[in-house]
């Protein structure tokens, strides 16, 4: 499918067109650091091509090289048929390229207004005034920014900044847009908006797009993609093709006691993870029945509540591919062992470990946190989910006694937030966004330092240090400098340091952003262990919707407020109750089909790569209606089936509902 142009409105183009970008064996290193090593890829006109990989995988370097703003050391690059081997050659294609670098709105000018920003980019690109007026109007309407023309860019929200960035990149109507992590840290509603706008433009102007992301769950948005890890391409192709490269089944189990099941499964199936109350096991067997039998055999004697197969995700394939190529070795060397415990783990519940009651915080006129209340039980993993700037960090800072609240109260580990902030600090562990490790000290020195800071009795320091090393899987790297560790290990060290004094409550602020999937899974293993066995109450913030599924309980934050507060399953159920089933439609002409479905008035219709998602109260009837509509326009319907909604679907629906409510008032 990716081989044919998607521009044509009527008939698919049969001739294979010239590729827009051809990359052959490109290498790029910064001094000794290898960024890109032997990457090959081809981007066809009209497609949205994705680069997916964790931070530091080499995505940005590759994109900059293609945009002609970064040199490379070896290999061949052709853009629009032009060999890019010099600055002069790069200049020749820059007029047809739009490039948006990484960092939300960072390439825009904070002091300039929305319109001034657009005008500046237009002037740089010599857009004639008549065309500029027309395009500006169109793009502003599409992004719903037309009412904010005079607002300085620095006062825009994250999602608006990102849309403005997109307008500025598109104002000269490039033939190829290169967008570096445009959706990182943006709220899910803006993310959907963004993808919709991109798909629209693609449909209208035949623009080719190269987009990178660190979110595996965005893979479905791309026509084709490359999985990038440590400067190499792990797999290339359509999302489904990549999934098939690592065939297997994903089995979801509800079993008691969870921690014992986890321990057993880990031995046989390395790709086992606890997701909230369930366990997901990736079994490298295509048949779901066989896989289920294998899992059951391992769990013999435990009380299995429920066991069924679900669709595998790209992340499972990614991890499986990493394992196949032994790229996970470094991580595996420091594999944290789940220690065998004799004490029978008790279920969640019991006492309240964290309680926020009507917490508010103002910064000048700006209300960062607005009347936030929730409870976290001991042994529970509680997720505070929201976009950058939603107020998550401010909530944590207030609860940990770093920031005094403007209103409301809170209890942490049995101490009052107002009167006993010192007591709180002694009873909690806190891992901040930028892990507060001392880069020039070794792993051991860092742990010992934190033990002394938290006044661990002298006699226990050695024992606690050993415990941290074992628990966090740091054996073998004790004498390495913290600054020289990989992101994933550094993050486990930060976690270990925060746990050295046996806190009852653990706060984690965006702990896994930028960590690769394997590292992230290890990290969650440890959190699970701490919660289920050590009975630590864990409050974790994240803007990654996929990660949120690991939590026992979730609170969605938006613009300083908690929008909804429930377990992930309850959230999905209530979405299905309020808005209907999530349907996935596969057709041969997705862009046309989307237009038709939107015109027919279906709620939440959005394009995910080649598929369309929408919400329908009565799925049967909706299915029939859509089939009829598509048949009228001679579009072949390849499939239509219900899907389990994701947390992101929930978030988007809830925010939209709230905004609609606010508008109607």
């Amino acid at each position, binding site marked *: 499918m990716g081989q044919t142009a998607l521009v044509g409105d009527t008939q698919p183009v049969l001739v294979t067109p010239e590729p827009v970008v051809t990359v052959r064996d490109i290498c790029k290193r910064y001094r000794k650091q290898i960024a890109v090593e032997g990457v090959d890829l081809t981007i066809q006109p009209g497609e949205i091509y994705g680069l997916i990989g964790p931070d530091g995988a080499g995505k940005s370097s590759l994109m900059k090289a293609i945009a002609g*703003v970064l040199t490379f050391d070896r290999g061949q690059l052709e853009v629009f048929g032009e060999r890019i081997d010099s600055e002069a050659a790069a200049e020749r294609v820059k007029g047809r390229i739009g490039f948006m670098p990484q960092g939300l709105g960072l390439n825009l000018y904070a002091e300039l207004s929305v319109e001034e920003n657009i005008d500046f980019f237009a002037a740089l690109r010599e857009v004639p005034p008549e065309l500029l007026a027309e395009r500006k109007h169109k793009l502003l309407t599409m992004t719903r920014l037309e009412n904010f023309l005079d607002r300085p860019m620095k006062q825009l929200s994250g999602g608006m900044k990102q849309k403005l960035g997109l307008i500025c990149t598109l104002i000269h109507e490039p033939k190829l847009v290169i967008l570096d992590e445009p959706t990182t840290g943006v709220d899910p509603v803006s993310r959907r908006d963004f993808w919709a706008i991109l798909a629209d433009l693609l449909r209208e102007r035949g623009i080719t797009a190269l987009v990178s992301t660190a979110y595996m769950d965005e893979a479905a948005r791309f026509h084709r993609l490359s999985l990038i890890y440590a400067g190499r391409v792990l797999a290339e192709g359509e999302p489904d093709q990549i999934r098939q490269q690592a065939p297997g089944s994903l089995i979801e189990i509800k079993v008691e006691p969870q921690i014992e099941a986890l321990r057993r499964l880990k031995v046989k199936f390395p790709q086992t993870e606890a997701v909230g109350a369930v366990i997901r096991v990736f079994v490298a067997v295509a048949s779901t029945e066989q896989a289920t039998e294998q899992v059951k055999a391992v769990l013999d004697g435990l009380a299995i509540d429920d066991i069924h197969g679900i669709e595998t995700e790209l992340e499972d394939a990614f991890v499986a591919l990493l394992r196949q190529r032994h790229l996970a070795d470094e991580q595996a060397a420091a594999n944290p062992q789940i220690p065998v415990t004799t004490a029978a783990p008790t279920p969640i519940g019991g006492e309240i470990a964290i309680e926020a009651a009507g917490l508010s915080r103002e910064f000048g006129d700006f209300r960062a946190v607005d009347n936030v209340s929730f409870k976290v039980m001991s042994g529970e993993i509680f997720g505070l989910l929201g976009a950058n700037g939603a107020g998550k960090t401010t909530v944590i800072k207030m609860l940990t006694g770093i920031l005094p609240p403007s209103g409301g109260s809170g209890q942490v580990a049995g101490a009052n937030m107002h009167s006993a902030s010192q007591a709180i600090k002694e009873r909690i562990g806190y891992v901040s966004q930028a892990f507060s490790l001392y880069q020039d000290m070794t792993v051991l020195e860092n742990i010992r330092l934190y033990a002394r800071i938290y006044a661990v009795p002298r006699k226990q320091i050695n024992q606690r240090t050993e415990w941290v090393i074992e628990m966090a899987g740091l054996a073998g790297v004790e004498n390495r400098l913290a600054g020289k560790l990989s992101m994933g290990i550094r993050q486990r060290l930060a976690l270990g340091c925060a746990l050295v004094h046996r806190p009852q409550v653990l706060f984690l602020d965006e702990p896994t952003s930028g960590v690769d999937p394997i590292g992230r899974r290890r990290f969650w293993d440890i959190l699970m262990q701490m919660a289920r066995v050590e009975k630590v109450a864990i409050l974790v913030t994240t803007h990654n919707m996929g990660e949120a599924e690991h939590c026992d309980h979730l609170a969605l934050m938006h613009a300083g407020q908690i929008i909804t507060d429930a377990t992930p399953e309850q959230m999905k159920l209530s979405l299905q109750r309020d808005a209907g089933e999530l349907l996935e439609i596969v057709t041969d002409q997705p862009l046309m089909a989307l237009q038709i479905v939107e015109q027919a008035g279906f709620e939440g219709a959005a394009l995910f790569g080649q598929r369309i998602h929408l919400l329908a109260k009565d799925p049967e009837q909706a299915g029939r209606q859509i089939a009829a509509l598509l048949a009228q326009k001679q579009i072949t319907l390849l499939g239509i089936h219900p899907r389990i909604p994701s947390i992101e679907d929930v978030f988007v629906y809830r925010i939209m509902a709230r905004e609609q409510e606010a508008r109607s008032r």
Partner: protein
Amino acid sequence: MNLHRIKAIIYKEWREILRDRLFLSLAFFVPVSMMLVFGYGIKMDVENIPFAVLDQDRSAMSRDYLHLFMDSRYFDYQGDVQNERELEPLLADSKIRFAIIVPPRFQENLLSGRPAPVQSLIDGTFPFRTATSKGYVIAINNAFNGKLLAGFISKKMGLSPEQAASLVQPVKLELRYLYNQELKSIWSIAPAMMMFILMMTPPFLTALGVVREKENGSIYNIYSSTVTRAEFLIGKLLPYLGISAVNVVILWFMAAQVFGAPFKGDPLFFFLASVVYDSCTTGIGLLVSLFANTQVAAMMITVVVTIIPSVLYSGLLVPIASMDAASQFEAHLFPAMYYTDIAIGSFLKGIGMEQLWGRAGALLLYTLVLWLVSYLLFHKRVRA
């Protein structure tokens, strides 16, 4: 070269500067406050040296002798002490910098033709001031000796005191100070401060302005567009050059009006030469910005590369002519020296184009080289 794109970049840059309060105050407030602080702070004049007196003779002649010091504008009489022990704490606390002790029988010794020793104690902690103070003490002492000798001769030979005085000093030195008749150090310092401030602030602003774009990534808008290198550099630098040109006028006004330094030269030549000097120092900032990746690094490098030449090799502290050969050579390598000559020449000496064209030419050459090197080093397809 596309004028529309240059204009777009200038306009954008200018907007950003105007709306960023911190940056705007940095652009205008810092030069003015530097001028005030240094103008009032650096005093090279050694005057009003506080001193105390221990007169153990208490005679008419000892009072005559001491009055020569008390009446001098170079010394500031703080009072008499009763014995030597009292002097030490005063000197130690810097209450006085100089003390003079007239021993007993000062008058008696002099009248009977014997030498009369006088002890002077000078604070040696500031060698420059000490050397100057010593010069004053010797000069006053000589004057007293001369007066004594003249008195003796006039009495012995029956001459009038004037005739006697001319006999004692057969060679009479007539002193006239040129350019700075009153030897006011501020007259020389104010123009030199213009050199110093215009050496520091334009590179600061330029380096921060460019590196800021590198730091937050907006430089990629330039890299990835069809704007040429020259268009970007011109558009980016002109606003900063404009700010510096305004600062030339402000500092010029302050030097002349606030500090009273006379301006005797050609205003047009001085202004143009100053703008060339600004372009030159702006070029230094540009060059720095190509190597620095963070604003902090840009600031540090700018301080190092601008302060050292402008303080040590400009003639601000030590005249170039009194440096050793190697330092003189180094001084000629930095632009600061040429502009110091232009500023002092225009203010105090009243000279212009005819005498200073060579120095202005050196600055122009310097500017061209800096801009050209920056142009060649600036790339839109970078290595890292």
